[in-house]
């Protein structure tokens, strides 16, 4: 099993969700985050004092998938999130050892979906 974490542009969330649903990935958890990457931030002036904001709003999506779902999950995220401009985001894949469904106590790959 894999844990997929993606950082995307906030306004792309609906598209990503749609792409994931089309790829039959129905489960996910979403957090909001601030990201710092190649994308330049913006500058604000508050009462005459300028400040650089280089933490930009991002959405963090976390999805646990079985190995055979990994590729289509990644592809779906890319499909939904890509604009081709700096700031589109990243996807991180890491190993997942176990999953427990709290409601039933089921464990492992069966619990993931």
């Amino acid at each position, binding site marked *: 099993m894999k844990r997929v974490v993606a950082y995307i542009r906030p306004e792309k969330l609906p598209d990503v969700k749609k792409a994931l649903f089309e790829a039959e990935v129905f489960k996910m958890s979403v957090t*909001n985050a601030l990201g710092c990457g190649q994308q330049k931030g913006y500058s604000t002036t508050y009462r005459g004092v300028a400040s650089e904001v280089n933490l930009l709003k991002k959405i963090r999506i976390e999805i646990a998938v079985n190995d055979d779902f990994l590729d289509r999950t990644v592809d779906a995220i890319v499909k939904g999130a890509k604009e081709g401009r700096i700031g589109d985001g990243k996807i991180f894949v890491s190993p997942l050892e176990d999953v427990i469904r709290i409601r039933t106590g089921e464990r492992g790959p069966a619990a993931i979906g």
Partner: protein
Amino acid sequence: MFRKLFLNKKMILPAIVFLVITGARILHAQEEAAPTIASNAASIADTVIAVDTVWTLFCAFLVFFMQAGFAMVETGFTRAKNAGNIIMKNQMDFAIGSLAYFLLGFGIMFGTDMIGGFFGWGGDPAQSGSLRPFTFWLFQVVFAATAATIVSGAMAERTKFTSYLIYSGIVSALIYPVVGHWIWGGGWLSRVMGGAMIDFAGSTVVHSVGGWCALAGAMILGPRIGKYGPNGQVNAIPGHNIPLAALGVFILWFGWFGFNPGSTVSGLAPNIAHIAVTTNLAAAAGACSAMIFAWFRFGKPDISMTLNGALAGLVAITAPCANVSPQSAIIIGLMAGVLVVVAVEFIDKVLKIDDPVGAISVHGMCGSFGTMCVGLFAQEKFGGVNGLFFGGGVNQLLIQLTGIASVFVWTFSLAFIMFKVLSATVGLRVTQEEELRGLDIDEHGCESYSGFQIFSTQ
């Protein structure tokens, strides 16, 4: 200044000069040994003017406070990322409008009639009828600003700030004053078809002018990104702060007690309480019927629709408030509450015009509806004519409809041209990038809720 008067009798204060010139009669009556009938009469006249002035000023202050109400409603019903921008627009349209109406607008509205009632010229802001100098101007400027500020809600979350500033000046200096002249300034609608259009406190003059400008603006601007899906489906873009919007509605309702009763411009007018009561009942009825109708239509008592319902009742009663009975006011309010729900849906889903706060429905539609109601519900015993339902025939109704239609044509056309020109020159809409990121950051370089975690997925 004056406050020292009675504490330090020896001081010769500038204020005394005033008293000597104009206020002296009263003091004389008090201080001198022998008041006469004439001196009493003069003192009474002076007191009457003072009461009228005090009343009119206080009502004007309440109407001013409606600016805060509009700002809160519009902020609450839009997204957090544009909150500062809408606040700025609300503040600046009052600031610019005040100056424009002082320098130009008032003259056009209340000046000497030109070209057969089409506009006025040369009115002096100090001129105040029998009220103290400048009283009338203050009361008028807050009305002008109300008309102007209505538009910001309909055009929220995507309009370029510079264009909005220019628009504010034009509407306060020209578009609104011309309509005002027609109906209140002695223009053609005040002497038409053997009668006069009755728009006591401005359902048409103020609200529908605002509403039709909003219509033109929202049409030309186009909807916010994401409001309508590629296949025409309609998406909800919920407002970010319902308590603030509700506070705004309470402030507006409060301010309306200045708006309508104050339009007597006289504290001695015997119907000021009557007007306050029709105003209040229509608002209450509008809130009730909008809630019930929305409940019936959508399955739940929608908060924003109910808030709009109260405003709909207020806007609708604004024209007939002095000429109808409290019972009629309730009926007018009930109808306005239903109308606003229907209108919001119609504009949103059928016309596909994106009006984030419902300004077109509340002010344009319900304003016109209320103006029409004068022709239906007016009763001669309240000081005007009889409307259709009270045996007065259709004449007044036709006058009202003529007024509604002419104001629509004038306002919509001018606003349409104005926004088209702005669009072609300064540009009316921010870029897609700016709209997505929020106008606060790109137009003003700030965040309105610094530190708060806000999801900005739309």
